[in-house]
């Protein structure tokens, strides 16, 4: 298996995500610069957290127009799994791969803490390691994680079983407690919590590791 992790100017969880891919998926990870135009022949694409372009304009808005994004869109359409975490989720909504938008937290402050989640759908390569309805814990760390979507969009997500995770104790005001959503084809997941920060007991749990293990089983 080969994975790619994109680095934008201001990405800061790129190394963490690459480490998680390497360690749990035992795969080679290409670190791809945002100005590159080709992700190469990969089986998984990671869009990491951080503050791409310093969150100027809107979180993820400038990164979504980086040269590498054209190839990412092509590959996503072709079915290559794409995982966007935190700022990566914001970028995936900004580039149109995922519906909705992420705005400032309801409490207006940055929030970094372990968050209880309910697995809302286990029907995707990224959630197949969990059981639907199961409760897990992943850390959140964001200032703009308040997911908003119009009522029609929300019913579509619900009808199509595309809400991947919901917060048990909503930390940011997200609509319908949504923490992560899938695209229609179910190969693209965007989520605010950080699975790559929960891959070993020393870092506070292994619930994130199970996302990657589940992915291995389906895709490996």
């Amino acid at each position, binding site marked *: 298996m080969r994975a790619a992790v994109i680095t934008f100017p201001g990405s800061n969880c790129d190394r963490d995500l690459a480490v*998680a891919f390497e360690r749990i998926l035992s795969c080679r990870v290409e670190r791809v610069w945002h100005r590159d135009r080709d992700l190469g022949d990969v089986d998984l694409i990671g869009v990491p957290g951080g503050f791409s372009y*310093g969150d100027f304009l809107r979180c993820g808005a400038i990164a979504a127009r980086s040269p590498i994004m054209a190839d990412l869109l092509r590959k996503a359409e072709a079915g290559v799994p794409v995982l966007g975490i935190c700022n990566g989720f914001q970028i995936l909504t900004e580039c149109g791969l995922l519906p909705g938008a992420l705005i400032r937290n309801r409490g207006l402050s*940055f*929030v*970094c803490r372990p968050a209880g989640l309910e697995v809302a759908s286990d029907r995707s390569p990224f959630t197949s390691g969990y059981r639907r309805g199961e409760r897990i814990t992943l850390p959140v*760390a964001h200032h703009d994680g308040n997911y908003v979507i119009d009522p029609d969009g929300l019913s579509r997500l619900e009808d199509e079983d595309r809400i991947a995770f919901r917060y048990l104790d909503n930390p940011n005001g997200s609509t319908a407690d949504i923490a992560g959503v899938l695209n229609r084809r179910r190969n693209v997941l965007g989520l605010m919590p950080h699975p790559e920060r929960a891959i070993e007991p020393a870092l506070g749990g292994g619930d994130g590791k199970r996302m990657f293990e589940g992915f291995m089983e389906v895709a490996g």
Partner: protein
Amino acid sequence: MAGTPSTAPPITPDIVAEHGLSKDEHGLILDILGREPNLVELGIFSVMWSEHCSYKSSKKHLGKFPTEAPWVVCGPGENAGVVDIGEGHVAIFKMESHNHPSFIEPFQGAATGVGGILRDVFTMGARPVAMLNALRFGEPAHPKTRHLVSGVVAGIGGYGNCVGVPTVAGECTFDPAYNGNILVNAMCVGIARADRVFYAEASGVGNPVIYVGAKTGRDGIHGATMASAEFTEESEAKRPTVQVGDPFTEKLLIEACLELMEHDCIVAIQDMGAAGLTSSSFEMASRGGCGIEMNLSAVPLREEGMTPYEIMLSESQERMLLVLQQGREDEAHAIFEKWGLAFASVGRVTDTGRMVLLWNGETVADVPIAPVSGASPVYDRPHEKSPPRVPVFADDRLAVGDHDVSLLKLMGSPDLASKRWIYEQYDHMVMGDTVQRPGGDAAVIRVHGTNRGLAVTSDCTPRYCEADPREGGRQAVAEAWRNLVATGARPLAITNCLNFGNPERPRIMGQLVDCIEGMAEACRVLDFPVVSGNVSLYNETEGRAILPTPNVGGVGLIENLDHMVTIAPDAAGLSLVLVGDGGHWIGASLFWRVVCGRNNGAPPPVHLGQELRQGRFVSDMIQRGFVCACHDLSDGGLAVAAAEMALASGIGASIDIPADVFSTNGWLFGEDQGRYLLAVESRILNELLALAVSAGVIARRVGETGGDALTLGAGSCISLEDLRRCHEGWLPDYMGRRR
């Protein structure tokens, strides 16, 4: 040189005074130059000789600190201190103040404090891996305090979160003495390869001097001079001299510099901090004993119409100055271009020993380097001892009510209340190596890719320093040492930030001298040298000084993370063992202040020999795997330590009160020093107690873990739920935003 560099306005006594220079200092400048300086030169002398840059009041005493140990690679004098942590790695760290700017503009002041200390660390080749901060605010009831807490915390978070370095530990306390002058001290710890440490020593005649990072604007002109004067009501009008931070550029600068450092073409590198281009160029040239010629017309500018004076004094953030090997400019330029940062060749190294500045081909300053940066005035300011205080011992005749009421008051008091509201606004987990998060004795960061860790802590008890500066100085160092020991780490070295009032007043100078001497003594006995530091004086407003606050940042090494311990006992039925004698010292304690409304008395003495013995015993027990959890005893004594352990684990505890104690208040709340509370399995209890006897250490069983309440003796029982509500509630309630 052809005559005096061009001078615009003539230098009048008023202009000299506006630059914070005394008449004598002006005379010294005339001697050095053999003529009147022009305005650019006067500006240079003004910032280089400011208290902030020259340490002119403290230098004489800073030499008292021990700075050497076999593991110290580089002590004070460089951008940050360097210690060997084994396996080919070094830790690089420093603490610095950003007090005055943070009071004037809390968000930007605190943010740029974080940015500045990060640069001090990565300029030496280290990837920053942890940030800490020590915050001292005025009393909660003061009308400005809430606004300042909110702004400072948002500023620290806004910067640290964006650059992607975890903010893992710190302190936050409140006292009316900081009403008009808060303290914001930031510490950064980085890790570098031992064979790849970079210094700021220019050399090689003809080597290019390169400017990289953000462009230069008019922000922060004379920040260093502002930080070297007392505050007045008019200080508010100085808001424009507070710099504005851009963490995005800083993140790019970190990555670009670390990438360039892999290329082996840097001769010297220095960040532009206080006094910007002036201090960075003078310091690099002075350390290398060479000269520099700079063409200011080549400096990348953000604004039009800037003068040489403004360019030299600007404190625009996120900038660095490098000396490269000749011929390597293109290679370096490509890296900075990739990261979208300004890169300009602005000068070259010379052998003249002078700083020559050109502007549009004309010489606008020409001064010798050594006398400006090396021979700044050093003052032996008169100092006077603080009056001695008498000890206050615990006494059960004090009418203070039940122990559970006292404990709840303490746990919900501003200084002891949980700081979760603060650290949840900081990303403390990014980089994936935070193996001990905020809330314990020290945070622990794993050395990436290994099973080793760095324990980091920041400590000081200003009320002790006020009561007895020498004892308070000793205690600040000892507490940092103790907090590292309590995680299983071997304490290595400290950095410090010495925050005091106006040194021209003998009482204040006396506090500074005594704190330094107390700290130095503790450092020597504990083999815990000082490798970097910063001094912040003139922390006064309208003549009212802050409490003497020598914040200590400690770093320790855990060679095997399997032997790390936390403050959270992971089981019921563990024995709680008190290492050290029973408490009886109440003077200057938090119990005395919060429960009894008093603040007199001498602080608890630190017996350094005993401190060392007890600490070594605890380390030994941790290494043997005997210790399930460990917490040092500090503010609030035994009862507060037990309560914090119970809250961290969610498992209750009972603390016995022996029948023979002189005073139950003292036993529970006394702040006698050098003590630890251990949770150990009952089956090894006797062995541990026997080992204590042979180590000459007092240790006894004082209770056990279990249940869902904290029981103090026979009479007092508090549910963990009540304890938690009280402990967690104060700060969010105060800030008016329960999240």
